[in-house]
């Protein structure tokens, strides 16, 4: 008669096993040289692990939409911070606008 019925114990252990496996996997993949892929792979696995923790250890799986909204909001703002920073850094080395001044003045570009 608790506010929330406790989860089954085995889910926690299963979750733990999954996380351990993923940890080993990410380490092995990191050791082989995947070139440009290495980071996406590593982060991808990290995201999966994070999802497992959030969904089952933090009970978001059976939590209210509000909780999910809260998580979504914080992740959204974090994404904005990281990606919008790149609109600056990623485009800094581009050639400035049309290299032809006349075009710039007449606005035809």
């Amino acid at each position, binding site marked *: 008669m608790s506010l929330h019925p406790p989860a089954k114990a085995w889910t*926690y252990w299963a979750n733990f096993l999954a996380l351990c496996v993923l940890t080993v996997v990410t380490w092995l993949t990191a050791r082989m040289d995947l070139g440009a892929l290495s980071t996406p792979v590593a982060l991808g696995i990290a995201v999966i692990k*994070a999802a497992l923790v959030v969904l089952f250890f933090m009970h978001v799986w059976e939590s209210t939409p509000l909780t999910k909204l809260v998580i979504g909001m914080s992740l959204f703002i974090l994404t904005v911070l990281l990606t919008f920073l*790149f609109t600056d850094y990623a485009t800094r080395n581009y050639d400035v606008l049309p290299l032809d001044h006349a075009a710039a003045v007449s606005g035809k570009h």
Partner: protein
Amino acid sequence: MQVTEKKHAQEAHDDHGHGHELAHHFVSVEQQHDAGNLGMWMFLTTEVLFFGGLFAAYTIYRYKFEKVFEQASNILDPMLGAINTIVLIFSSVTMAFAVRSAQQGKSKAIVAWLGATIVFGALFLGIKYGEWKHDARLHVFPTSDFNWTWAREKHAEGEHGHGHDSHGPELKGFVFNSPVVPANYIESDSRNPEAKQAKLFFFLYFSMTSLHALHMIIGFGVMAVIMVYAWYGYYTPHYYVPVESVGLYWHFVDLVWIFLFPLLYLLGAHLGAGH
């Protein structure tokens, strides 16, 4: 609707019956629990952005100095990182069980599980402490005594089986008063822009891991208090927000590490560190 309201209103007024279970300004235990739970989630969103600032700095410099960051990350030991990850995850499991026992109203079990959580958290910090000690020998603490040339050399030797700590002068203290590296190393560092970039990596490494460690230590404190309360059966299936909250907090600490591990330790693993 109104009837229930009336009941709650009364409940709220003669809340002495409930003792600590219901604070005066709440109408029902459900409301109180949901408020506490939502509050903790709100706090965690703040924490996300708090670490987010550091992650932003990391992202930018990693983008600007990709190569050096990989070499610098290669100095760290992924094996220890992986072990620590597992240890921390296991402490998350024990924490999950602590919350579960709270939901079932098993006070003594709460104490036991929280105790286990603290033990494994401490183990994590112990391993971390060992790493930092090793880092100090490699002179990678982002202070005046940072030396990239020295770090790379000693690390390379360490990889070729001589074992890590046989090399380099003996340490007198923990971190900062390790003996000065030879002048020619400092000279070569001063002429090498990559030394500055590596220093940035290690600055981010130490600030992120130490901020993470600080969060764990704070967690220990909170858990200790909760263990005392739990021992005296303060928490019931109606009122266990504190246990649940410290649980969420601890899982969040775990989350941060799940991302720190690949970003800091695995970045340069493919450069063939033979650990």
